């Protein structure tokens, strides 16, 4: 009998304390030994401080700094997502200012000190976890925008056989010809523009010489989240995304392929 160890990898909390609690329960059910969060704790959702007890006090949870966390932690003026469309910027700024004002000073300090990558050796493979891409925290790795040759270059440069990222909000898994893999774990903070209300994470089962990537859908009480967002006075556009599963803002960054799926 070979030993199998289970890990859970997720990203993009976006203040969604309800899905975060559901994720941690699911990780326990999966028997996860360690849990990895790839960053972007704030933005979008309600009551930013509510996620921190979970993040800071879960013993086997390791949290990485995303671009959002870097901005909030260092008290910068915006999220550095780099939108150019004024409408996108308008909504991005509402969400940033709200998160900034409602994140306590100690929690900001905690975000500022987070590490920016994790490395492991699993089943003899070099595993790297980054927020956006190994070379740039705020680089988007979309499925339709990542040629095999480019992913190979990223893996070569960062000396990895298996790479996990988040940041875009839409999950995907690619296995290259040489067997190396890149996994975008998606986010747990909002649905992946697919018309569903579920969110995404990944379970990894590591044997003596095998690694199995199991993408998961997570259900949570999205209606409770929507109600809380309304109570907090967050834009109805954000609430709509939670309720319908379609993105309504920050669409400019979506490649043509990913955008053509949704109605906006």
């Amino acid at each position, binding site marked *: 009998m070979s030993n199998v160890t289970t890990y859970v990898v997720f990203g993009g909390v976006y203040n969604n304390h309800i899905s975060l609690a559901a994720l941690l329960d699911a990780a326990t059910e999966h028997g996860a030994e360690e849990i990895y969060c790839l960053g972007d704790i704030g933005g979008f959702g309600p009551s930013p401080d509510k996620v921190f007890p979970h993040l800071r006090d879960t013993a086997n949870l390791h949290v990485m700094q995303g671009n959002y966390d870097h901005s909030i932690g260092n008290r910068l003026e915006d999220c550095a997502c780099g939108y*150019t*469309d*004024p409408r996108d910027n308008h909504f991005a700024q509402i969400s940033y200012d709200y998160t900034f004002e409602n994140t306590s000073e100690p929690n900001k300090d905690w975000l500022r000190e987070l590490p920016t990558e994790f490395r492991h050796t699993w089943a003899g493979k070099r595993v790297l976890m980054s927020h956006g891409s190994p070379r*740039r925290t705020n680089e988007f790795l*979309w499925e*339709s*925008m*990542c*040629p095999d*040759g*480019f992913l*190979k*270059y*990223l893996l*070569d440069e960062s000396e990895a056989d298996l790479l996990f990222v988040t940041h875009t909000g839409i999950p995907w898994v690619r296995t290259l010809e040489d067997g190396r893999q890149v996994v975008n774990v998606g986010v747990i903070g909002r649905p992946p523009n697919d018309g569903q209300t579920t969110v995404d994470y990944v379970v990894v089962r590591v044997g003596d010489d095998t690694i199995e990537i199991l993408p998961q859908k997570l259900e949570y009480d999205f209606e409770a989240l929507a109600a809380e967002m309304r109570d907090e006075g967050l834009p109805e556009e954000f609430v709509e995304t939670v309720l319908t599963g379609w993105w309504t803002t920050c*669409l*400019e960054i979506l*490649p*043509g*392929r*990913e*955008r*053509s799926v949704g*109605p*906006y």
Partner: protein
Amino acid sequence: MATDLINLDRLIAKAEERKHLPAPELAFQHLDTLWLQVTGTLCNLACLHCFISCGPKNESHPFMSKEQVFQALEDGARYGVKEVYFTGGEPFMHPDIKDLITKTLEIAPLSILTNGILIDDAMAAWLGETFRNSRYTFDMRVSLDGTTAEENDAIRGRHTFEQILQGIDKLWANGLNPVITVTTCHAELGAAEGRSKFIELLKDRGITQPRLKFLSPFKIGREERRDSGYQNYERLVEGDLIEGEEDDLQCSSCRMVTAKGVYPCPILIEVEEARMGDSLADGMTPIKLDHPACYTCHVEGVTCRT
């Protein structure tokens, strides 16, 4: 206004003091973006602001042969290219355009910069189908320079407004949502109000997901004659680049291949000294930011990517 004048004086004085310094050198990081000047400088239009003076008679860069394009793609794939752009001139003048598109999409995502006029129904249908079936994303970037025929045609030529919009309609009808590219020759086009006018125009035509990109004009090519060209102080010297700018300047991660060889970026293909060699391999080296157009990139943070 007064502050603008003072700043300008200071800028000129500062440039005067530093003009003996060499131009900054920019390292090459990685080939993220491969530009292919597939139809050279040949275009069905001759827009006033065209930064490479393209037109029906400009053959300074001829069409690339299919072999030249395939070679550049093969080289690009070897370097781990992230995305490919076709430009010209007008890419849809190329007789082998379908083969070029098909081959590229096997390797990387593709964006085509076009004025949209030559896209007929059959081509639009083929493009839509290609978009749906390709492994990587496929984008059309259609240039439009105003929200009225008057505004646009003054720059792009008579009757082009309606023709361009028809091209956009055909693409949209076939499931390909083009990125409308606007050159901000008039500052107000890029401002919030200008943007909403474009969004309105597209929505009125039934395009429910308007995608827009605004580009600053470069004062070279025909644009040099239309506007004022660059002033003496508009040159970069060592020490001008600010922290992190190396990453932001597209030429640290892009190269342009034309029928005549490899160049640092899409902007400088008519500058003979900027030519880096025959093939993409010759372009994998640092460059000197010694052209006045580099000043626009520095000041405006311009990138030609979508």
